[in-house]
């Protein structure tokens, strides 16, 4: 535990020039992942109610 914490501190936190970019890239990755996750959750909760689920019933492909 202590070794892990020390590694984390030395690798990411020690220099601000590393810490701040890590935060920003992490924020970018987090927002993308959060978006995907919430969309998946929404689709799962609304299975069969959205247009993309019922489109096949109303539109026949020529």
């Amino acid at each position, binding site marked *: 535990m*202590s070794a892990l*914490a020390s590694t*984390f501190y030395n690798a*990411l936190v020690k220099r601000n020039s590393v810490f701040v970019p*890590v935060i920003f890239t992490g*924020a*970018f990755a987090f*927002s993308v992942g*959060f978006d995907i996750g919430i969309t998946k959750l929404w689709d799962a909760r609304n299975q069969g109610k959205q247009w993309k689920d019922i489109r096949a019933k109303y539109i026949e492909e020529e």
Partner: protein
Amino acid sequence: MATVHLSKKAVTIPTTVRTLSSGVPVAPLVNLAARGGHDAHGHGHGASGPRSDTPARWAGGVSRTSSGFVSKTFQYSPVTGIHQKSLMHTSAVVRDAPQVPDFSKYEAKDPSTNRGLAYLMIGSLGLLSASAAKSTVTEFLATMSASADVLAMAKVELELSSIPEGKNVIIKWRGKPVFIRHRTQSEIEEARSTDWKSLRDPESDEARTKKPEWLVMLGVCTHLGCVPIGEAGDYGGWFCPCHGSHYDISGRIRKGPAPLNLEVPQYDINEVDNKMVIG
């Protein structure tokens, strides 16, 4: 010659050299705490030390006050009955700094773990705030862009198979005319073989078309905004009747007052459905 000998000599004088008008003798310099010598200094009172017959301090005693000697004797009623035991002892534990509570229980067992955790928390908060700030800004900017219904209205779809080769079609898109020409092979060759680098607004035909047989342009003269006439002019393209600008078969300005080529809008050609979407 007479010499003066100054000598210091201890002189014992009576302690009461003065008497108040009330008759009380004044003894200002009596040291009640003075003890006798350690030796049995020759007047027969046994060993030195505290007198055995002196009452204890708590029982009273003699003290000197501003109004003279006071002798007090305290009387205590004898303790009878049950002696209660005081089970909770109140004696304080001796510490270095008695006012400070003992925080040793809360001290970090390992400072580096604490530090790592603290910075992890700081970083996570920063990450979440940065993400929230980014979302706020992008969502706010998204409110400025056109809404979906406006964008849907802003697109025009048309069937390409309905336009025969060598024909012009003029459609309305966002309130402006759009020229679509299905060019013949000879027209393509003519447009591409032109030395475009010497033109007023140098632009190659390859840059102006996505597929060589389909030429799509805004039908607004770049001079003053008239609508040019198709299949007219000296260069076999378009001719603006207002001030006489001649455009070639690629829509490039060749002659007349217009400064720029006819503008090419955003469009996409769907090869599978043979459809074109402008916008």
